[in-house]
């Protein structure tokens, strides 16, 4: 039934391949997979065939670059230092550890220049000590300058302004009521 192999004018390697193919096709050589042309010799092909028949996924495993461990990659790109958008350049100076933290009130943005009082020896003032606190030389007897650090009681002029304001508000309200009553009548 089978043709004689010697009659087929093929090389020795091809003859063995044909034999394998015929065995596989006839069902006699169960467990073989025919390879149409092999470059690495029969030995390597045989191992590949056996592995392929045992599990087709083993071929995929052989060619695979390997799996990725769980948790190997958590982001698509490498780590990158993030800075705030306002400060693109990082300051490289580190603050002194002992430097006191200065809190400036929001209403006072600028501080008076720091005066090193330790340089002035006690009991030996140089010239007038506080010339800025006193009001300047006024031309008249009445000084318009309010002394600093005013007390809790307002001046009479402040009281008067407050009263005038209240009276004007009351007048406006009464006038509006009266106008509305006239309009509704």
């Amino acid at each position, binding site marked *: 039934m089978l043709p004689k192999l010697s009659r087929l004018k093929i090389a020795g390697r091809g003859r063995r391949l044909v034999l394998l193919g015929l065995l*596989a*096709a006839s*069902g006699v050589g*169960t467990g*073989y*997979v*025919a*390879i*149409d*042309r*092999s*470059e*690495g010799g029969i030995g*390597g*092909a045989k191992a*590949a*065939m056996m592995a*392929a*028949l045992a*599990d*087709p*996924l083993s*071929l*995929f*495993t*052989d*060619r*695979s*670059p*390997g*799996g*990725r*461990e*769980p*948790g190997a*990659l*958590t*982001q*698509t790109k*490498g780590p990158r230092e993030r800075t705030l958008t306002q400060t693109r350049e990082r300051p490289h100076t580190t603050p002194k550890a002992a430097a006191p933290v200065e809190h400036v009130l929001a209403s006072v943005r600028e501080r008076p220049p720091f005066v090193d009082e330790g340089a002035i020896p006690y009991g030996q003032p140089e010239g007038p000590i506080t010339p800025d606190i006193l009001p300047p030389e006024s031309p008249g007897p009445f000084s318009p300058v309010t002394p600093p650090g005013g007390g809790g009681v307002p001046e009479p002029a402040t009281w008067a302004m407050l009263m005038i304001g209240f009276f004007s508000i009351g007048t406006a309200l009464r006038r509006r009521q009266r106008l509305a009553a006239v309009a509704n009548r």
Partner: protein
Amino acid sequence: MLAAVVARHHADRYLPDPPVRQIETGPRIWYPAGQYPVLALPDGEHRTVKSVLNVRETMHFGDYVWNDQHVPQGDTWVRVDLARQLLSVFRDGHEIGSAVILYGTDGKPTPTGVFPIMEKQVEHRSSLYDAEMPFMLRLTGDGVAIHASNVRRGSATHGCIGVPPSFAALLFAAVKRGDTVAIMPPAGIRG
């Protein structure tokens, strides 16, 4: 036919970015008739395999294999193996292409399961990431797709499946809308 021509044209355009190493595929491993092995899909379906490309060496990132000579026309499906980081294209039960892929990180994992190809776009610009994604094959409604990517070791995607650009062109021409893509779970996750 027109689509194939367009795809080829764009493939030429994208060819300046060749794969790292194109593996020559000589022999193909044919399974004897009646002893076809089957591959299980995540949804429980089984697909018969008639022949597999015989890749003798380990493929590296950026490598791919394509050989559809003497393979008849037929049902095409794609098997994405996240555990082996491989993608295989089958036509009529014969494997015609395979490539090393990139897939999503643990923070943005690639979904597993069986998906039909919803949309094909030769030139696509991701609205989510504002990036070019040529040869896009959309799989899910929330943007997971197979597309061309720079496949390098240590890289990952935001959930998509990245393949080398020239392989993406071949794959794009080989599949049609509605074809099945089966994504097998990665290592460490079973079921």
